[in-house]
């Protein structure tokens, strides 16, 4: 039997698309989210389509005190964990309302870092495991239009890089996924350019491939690696004056 795949943020379109990609390969799926019982329809759909076991797990990214017990209680042991927890927020509102800004930062960085920290310790002790973190191209450089979300993702990206470095000798692999635009509930209503916008299913397939090939960092769509390379290369005196 194949290793179960744990999806943190099991309600998100990206998390579910990745779950479908792994389930199609015969992996049992563990969906973890707040109000996990509300994921019954999604769980049933996964198990009917792919004939795999699907279990639902109560998980709150914003309750780090509960994370250790959550990780210890996972049975059977997941072989792959995908963290698709995220909150885009509203940049302009979050500039005024620091409580809202903190919520964005905690959801995108503190929560994921905490739960993956516990999982990393468990995987390291067991000598195997794969950690997939869904970060964002927004973390590649702080920009006026989304730096609150972006800074949290930057922190998460650095955290994943550090985990990868720390665990490389322990048989634990860490994959950082940096999606650009993805057509999900998070971006619904935004006018996204079609050639740069991935469907969640595309992301699912890309993550599955990247895990199989032990890739370290992937951009989806790949063109984003180029775009962010250019954005990172712009000198700060010029960059600060851009409306970007």
């Amino acid at each position, binding site marked *: 039997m194949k290793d179960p795949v744990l999806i943190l943020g099991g309600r998100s379109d990206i998390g579910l698309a990745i779950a479908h990609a792994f389930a199609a390969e015969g992996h049992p799926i563990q969906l973890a989210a707040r109000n996990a019982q509300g994921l019954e*329809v999604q769980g*049933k*759909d996964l198990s*009917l*389509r*792919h*004939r795999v076991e699907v279990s639902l797990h109560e998980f709150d990214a914003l309750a780090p005190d509960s994370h250790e017990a959550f990780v210890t209680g996972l049975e059977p042991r997941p072989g792959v964990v995908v963290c698709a927890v995220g909150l885009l927020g509203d940049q302009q509102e979050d500039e005024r309302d620091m409580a809202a800004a903190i919520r964005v930062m905690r959801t995108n960085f503190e929560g994921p870092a905490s739960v993956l920290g516990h999982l990393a310790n468990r995987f390291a002790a067991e000598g195997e495991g794969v950690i997939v973190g869904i970060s964002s191209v927004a973390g590649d450089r702080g920009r006026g239009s989304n730096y609150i979300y972006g800074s949290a993702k930057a922190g998460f990206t650095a955290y994943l890089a550090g985990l990868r470095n720390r665990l490389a000798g322990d048989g634990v692999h860490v994959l950082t996924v940096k999606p650009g635009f993805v057509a999900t*509930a998070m971006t*619904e209503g935004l006018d996204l350019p079609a050639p740069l916008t991935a469907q969640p299913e595309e992301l699912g397939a890309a993550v599955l491939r990247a895990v199989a090939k032990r890739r370290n960092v992937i951009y989806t769509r790949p063109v984003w690696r180029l775009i962010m390379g250019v954005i990172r290369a712009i000198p700060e005196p010029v960059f600060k004056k851009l409306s970007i």
Partner: protein
Amino acid sequence: MSRPLSGWGRYPKIAPETLARPRSDAAVAEAMAKGPLIARGNGRSYGDSALSEGQVLDMTAFRHILSFDPQTGLVEAEAGVLLGDLIAAFLPLGFFPFVTPGTKLVTLGGAIAADVHGKNHLRDGSFGHHVAWIEIMTAEGEVLRCTRASNSGLFQQTIGGMGLTGVILRAGLTLRPVETGWIAQDMRPARDLAEAMAIFEEAAADADGPTYSVAWFDCLGQGAALGRSLVMLGDHARLEQLTPRRRARPFVTPEKRRLNVPLDAPGFALNRYTLRAFNGLYYRAGARKAGPSLVDWDSYFYPLDAIANWNRIYGRRGFAQFQCVLPLAEARPGLEELLAAISEAGQGSFLAVLKRLGPDTTAHSFPMEGYTLALDFPVTPAALALLDRLDKITLDHGGRFYLAKDSRLTAQTLHAADPRLATLAETRRSEGWDARFASAQSRRLQL
């Protein structure tokens, strides 16, 4: 204003004022409160059935399979689930849809709304015959479960109701048990219309005859070649018909190579000469394969699904599909007249398809006992003029038209051909459905 949408024929293209993609029943009700809307599935109806200048409701987020009972074959699913999803999930368990159109990329909701038929209408009726229940968001904004026994009026009206009776949210569909993923096909070349119809009638008269029958038709043939066709009879293959190697894995069929049409073909690519040459080649290639063979389900039912965006071969202007059914007694003279008009105009198509339909018991679905002819034309002034002529011939022979294919009929022609639709229009007015559910097609055709 949203970007323009179109059906599979890419004609017409209409930008809806609002395009909403609800993820819950509540969101559907919310959209309804904002004004009249039409639900849209995967955009596989050909014309303007799922288009509107007003509000279009993209139902593709309703994509979950809810339950399956292998004892009864009953699958329960949300309206945006594709037939192809059901096949992928349940063929490995030995189940296949009782009724399927020529593409697996239609949604459950769309298949019910258009009450689609397949190559087995004579044996198994239309799609709606296998629907156990439908959950509908009614004009009043309530979720109502409809079956043949309870709320049966709304149930019957919704089957073939083109989304004009409410928004289909979820449904229960009974699947057919099959022993394999293969079809035992018998390919019979026919030199003309009379020969093709004789093969159909022979099959129809035999109660143990083939489940599926369909003919590909050369509507550009001249003289003796007018109506030459390949009649394909088929049945779900039984386990013992497979080779021992395949018998071990009866539902595994070869992965098909996927092709794509990346660009719109230029307007001059399709003309009577290229089409005549293509049709001649197709006929001869098919005639060489005459006789029995085993064909995998995907190639048998969905040959065009292997070519993504095949609708682009008709160029940027798009195409109009014509599909009528003629009552049995009038089929022969009516088809001859239709074919003569098409051949004379030289406006042929790749795919002219002839099927034998069985008796109809629905409220207002397309099929009736007789023969149905379907073909497509690039949208040109000459083709549109020919289509008007074909409408007239159909009407003269007591035939009717398939709304899922239509983009251009007049209200007058439609209502003259099918008096049942006046009843639908009347009910819509008296129940107030017309204020909630409307498509570009329903406005054009005064439904």
